[in-house]
């Protein structure tokens, strides 16, 4: 096993090629959707249901308003199918009669003057027969006294290996816990929005802030009943997404397109204000986990028994996929003979929950990792020792039943984390500090975990992704793919991979704008798949291009920029300068998605995160004084970008652990719908985040790279919870760990 350690020390300047989008962003020249020129544009707005589900009786238009001045769209105006295209056609584009949550779109309005629009919005009232007993709680939904859908269950999965009853028999120590995690808002700083243009030929051009252009395209096809050739989706610079712009842009795009169809050729801008964005767009699924772990006296896990339930909200959207990821990651990077993970996604009357970095895994990993510390406590064992006894090694059977190959670094990341943080020494120092009666208490806690990169199992096969490279006459090469830059650095990383594969400088390679009329479908930009899967395809396409240049244009084995350009010019002139690579899964990818058996991912990335916290004993505020993220990522294609991804994800994870909590009003709408009361960390709140990268070089991507972006969301919350538990000697069962909760725990716990 060869491992390279890139220790991103604070005093070292990590380098990598400059981001290709850097300068435009720094100078303010990059155009986001609200910045796009749109001559004569109308502004759109949305009239929404008030009740938490019910029946729409009537739409009343105030006769005092001259409605002919406005573009008005209702469900009647939908030319195609009134459903947002996703896994299931259950969510209407516009409510016709029944609806399931507060905030569903009913009427769309557009006008050139935002002020008039604001007044008109008040001139429309909806007569609703409200749902008398909405459901907002996961366990209430499971009891199904009222049903939103049959049984209130969108998906029900079971991952089962061995026999938990047998494990119980072998266990000397058992813990039994219940954990709750809240919804979390992505809080991209750019609110969602779309700009729709009806072209003279009747086709529609849709520009906007989005992650997955082909999802939007498919949604438009279905809603408008138009064929793909008459629709074009173009991504504008996207100001953050984190999963939040995976499915919802389809909704806004359908709305904007419907308005544009009736706007007489004027473009329609539908940009959400922050409050609306917070209230209606999907967020992280809240979860409730019942977990039992059993170990023998030596600390070897004998069984893992989990009942993992997530709140899917009022429509199915992506919940089954989120659930499946939560279930697969639930048992953690541990070997255990008897495992039972029951996972359910339930229907409630909340707005649908959706994708957010980590996609179900942060919820189940939190439960598992905090439970591991609880088990260690009950065993009287150090949490590190317990983990060392149980972490997977090459040759072990993974929780999904396949044999773990060489690409396993569970122990290596833990060892590196212990060394970097001087874990044992710190732990002793903090114990001494706590015994000395200072006005604060300190603790150190950790989480060990792994995250699969790319779509689960056969998912990539279903996607059948394609990437093209276009050689240009001047010897430059253009990458054509549908994967989007939304801040995570994809544009730079993909260009870098192509340039390296072609032996060209980076400025000879360009990533084409994500425009469905030009780029093939290389799959959505989700699930940490871009660098690994799409990067792999680019490499493959580069190989094809070089081969073609050699075969038809006699490009020599070694070449310089000039001869490369000459060969390209020839190919270009011959009209044969486009190559396309198709995805084929690795040969050993056997995965059964019914039984959760086999090899779930082409690659897992491995991590051990360590949090050091200080709790103020007067106010019970927690401060993360130090945070270390050790991550094995195969190969760091661009260390600066990787580091930025990890630091940013950890910051979101710290928010998840300590501050971020979506609160609900009595209608199931986000109550803290302003940035002043949905609390994310500011720079004044964040201490050091140390990033240590390990490169094992065995990932399925270029040069052995794997996905990076989701792990940083998985680890911080459990590491922080474990650190606080250690500092205060209490048991925590819920995040965020707000001071109010610590007060309850420390006062009632007699601490």
């Amino acid at each position, binding site marked *: 096993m060869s491992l390279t350690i890139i220790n991103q020390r604070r005093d070292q300047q990590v380098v990598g090629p400059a981001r290709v989008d850097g300068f435009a962003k720094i100078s303010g020249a990059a155009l986001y959707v609200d910045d796009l020129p749109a001559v004569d544009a109308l502004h759109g707005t949305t009239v929404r249901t008030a009740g938490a589900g019910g029946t729409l009786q009537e739409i009343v238009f105030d006769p005092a308003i001259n409605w002919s001045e406005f573009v008005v769209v209702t469900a009647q105006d939908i030319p195609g199918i009134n459903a947002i295209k996703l896994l299931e056609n259950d969510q209407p584009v516009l409510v016709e009669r029944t609806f399931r949550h507060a905030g569903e779109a009913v009427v769309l309005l557009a006008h050139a003057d935002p002020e008039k629009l604001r007044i008109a919005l008040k001139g429309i009232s909806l007569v609703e027969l409200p749902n008398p007993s909405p459901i907002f709680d996961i366990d209430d939904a499971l009891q199904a006294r009222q049903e939103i859908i049959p049984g209130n269950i969108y998906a029900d999965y079971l991952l089962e290996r061995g026999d938990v009853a047998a494990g119980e028999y072998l266990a000397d120590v058992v813990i039994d816990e219940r954990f709750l995690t809240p919804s979390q808002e992505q809080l991209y700083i750019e609110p969602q929005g779309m700009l729709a243009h009806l072209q003279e030929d009747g086709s529609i051009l849709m520009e906007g802030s989005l992650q997955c252009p082909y999802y939007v395209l498919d949604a438009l096809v279905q809603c408008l009943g138009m064929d793909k050739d008459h629709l074009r989706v173009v991504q504008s610079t996207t100001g953050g997404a984190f999963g939040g712009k995976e499915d919802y842009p389809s909704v806004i795009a359908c709305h904007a397109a419907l308005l544009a169809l009736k706007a007489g050729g004027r473009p329609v801008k539908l940009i959400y204000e922050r409050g609306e964005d917070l209230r209606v767009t999907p967020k992280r699924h809240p979860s409730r986990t019942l977990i039992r772990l059993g170990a023998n006296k030596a600390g070897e896990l004998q069984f893992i028994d989990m009942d993992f339930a997530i709140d899917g909200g009022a429509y199915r959207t992506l919940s089954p996929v989120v659930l499946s990821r939560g279930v697969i990651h639930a048992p953690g990077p541990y070997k255990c003979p008897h495992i039972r993970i029951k996972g359910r996604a339930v229907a409630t009357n909340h707005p649908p929950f959706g994708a957010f970095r980590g996609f179900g895994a942060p919820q189940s990993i939190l439960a598992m990792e905090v439970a591991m510390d609880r088990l260690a406590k009950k065993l009287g064992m150090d949490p590190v020792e317990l983990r060392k006894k149980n972490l997977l090694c090459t040759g072990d059977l993974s929780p999904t039943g396949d044999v773990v190959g060489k690409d396993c670094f569970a122990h290596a990341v833990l060892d590196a984390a212990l060394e970097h943080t001087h874990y044992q020494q710190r732990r002793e120092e903090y114990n001494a500090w706590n015994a000395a009666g200072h006005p604060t208490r300190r603790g150190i806690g950790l989480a060990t975990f792994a995250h699969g990169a790319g779509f689960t199992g056969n998912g990539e096969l279903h996607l059948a992704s394609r990437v093209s490279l276009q050689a240009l006459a001047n010897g430059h090469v253009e990458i054509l793919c549908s994967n989007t830059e939304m801040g995570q650095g994809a544009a730079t990383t993909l260009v870098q991979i192509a340039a390296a594969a072609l032996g060209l400088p980076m400025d000879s390679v360009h990533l084409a704008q994500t425009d469905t009329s030009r780029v093939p479908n290389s799959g959505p930009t989700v699930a940490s798949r871009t660098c690994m899967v799409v990067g792999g395809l680019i490499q493959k396409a580069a190989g094809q291009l070089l081969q073609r240049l050699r075969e038809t244009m006699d490009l020599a084995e070694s070449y310089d920029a000039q001869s490369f350009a000459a060969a390209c010019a020839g190919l270009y002139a011959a009209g044969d300068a486009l190559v396309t690579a198709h995805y084929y899964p690795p040969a050993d990818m056997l995965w059964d998605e019914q039984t959760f058996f086999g090899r779930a991912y082409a690659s897992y990335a491995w991590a051990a995160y360590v949090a050091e916290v200080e709790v103020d004993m007067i106010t*019970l*505020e927690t401060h993360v004084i130090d945070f270390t993220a050790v991550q094995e990522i195969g190969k760091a294609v661009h260390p600066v970008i990787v580091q930025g991804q990890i630091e940013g994800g950890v910051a979101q994870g710290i928010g998840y652990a300590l501050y971020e909590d979506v609160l609900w009003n009595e209608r199931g709408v986000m109550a803290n719908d302003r940035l*002043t009361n949905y*609390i994310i960390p500011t*720079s004044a709140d964040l201490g050091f985040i140390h990033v240590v990268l390990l490169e094992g070089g065995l990932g399925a991507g270029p040069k052995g790279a794997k996905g990076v972006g989701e792990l940083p969301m998985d680890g911080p919350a459990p590491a922080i919870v474990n650190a606080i538990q250690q500092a205060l000697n209490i048991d925590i069962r819920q995040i965020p760990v707000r001071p109010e909760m610590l*007060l309850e725990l420390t006062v009632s716990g007699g601490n």
Partner: protein
Amino acid sequence: MSEWTRPRHLPEALELLAAAPGQYRVISGGTDLMVESHLAPERHPEFWLDISGLRELQGLQITEEGIRIGAATSLEVIRRHAEVVTHWPMLAASAAVTGAPPIQNRATLGGNVCNASPAADNAPVLLAYGARLEIAHHHGSRWLPYMDFHQGYRKTALQAGELLSALWIPYPPKHSRGYFRKVGTRAAQAIAKVSIAALIEEDSGGMIQGARFGMASVAATPCTLPSVSQYLLGRALRDIADAQVRQRVGQDIAPIQDIRSTTAYRLEIASRLVLEAIHGRSESKKED
């Protein structure tokens, strides 16, 4: 279309206000008002009186008894002012934890007080220092102890036609010590869940000669702690029974549960902070 007036001198402003009492919406730094008009555009006032150009309302002057701070002085100017930092460190600290730099560059002390939020960050300090307000009217000025300014939830003693022109803060007594702490939802850009300022005066024998508290976010208005102050008067630190203090804190404040915190937390933390202030474990502690 609304009308905007930006006079240069106080008398001019007061005359306008007197001529049309209750008509104008006074705007200073705008950090509260602009948010309000963004969130509730229908409540947009028709007549704005912009007091940011009034010279009389700007700046700080040292006098024999203390300092006069023009109501429209920005928190940024206040927190950097050398005399403030030296003699009224709690005010420098409270100004420095109000919002974040871009807010402090605009927000004014008068605006913070007149906006009358129960969570106003500079209110506790002004209460603890025993500030007085200079309230101007076309017919002349009046003085009001700041303690008497807040009369109910977002209700102040300002009458139609009046402007807050300045805040006066006396020098703290020689043997006094201060304590300030804001407990917010995060370290910057935070609304207080509980905040406290205290000024405690002891004689050479350790007897408490005076104790003034100001708190925010624990009642409908920023408030003092009269029964705590009374209990402390004439007592030596060692004779103070913490349980008695806690009980009196409970009498003096009326915290609520809201989106930011719970009643139980506010009550308990208020008591702990009051005790910490009394026992003097920390001086002018700034949250960060």
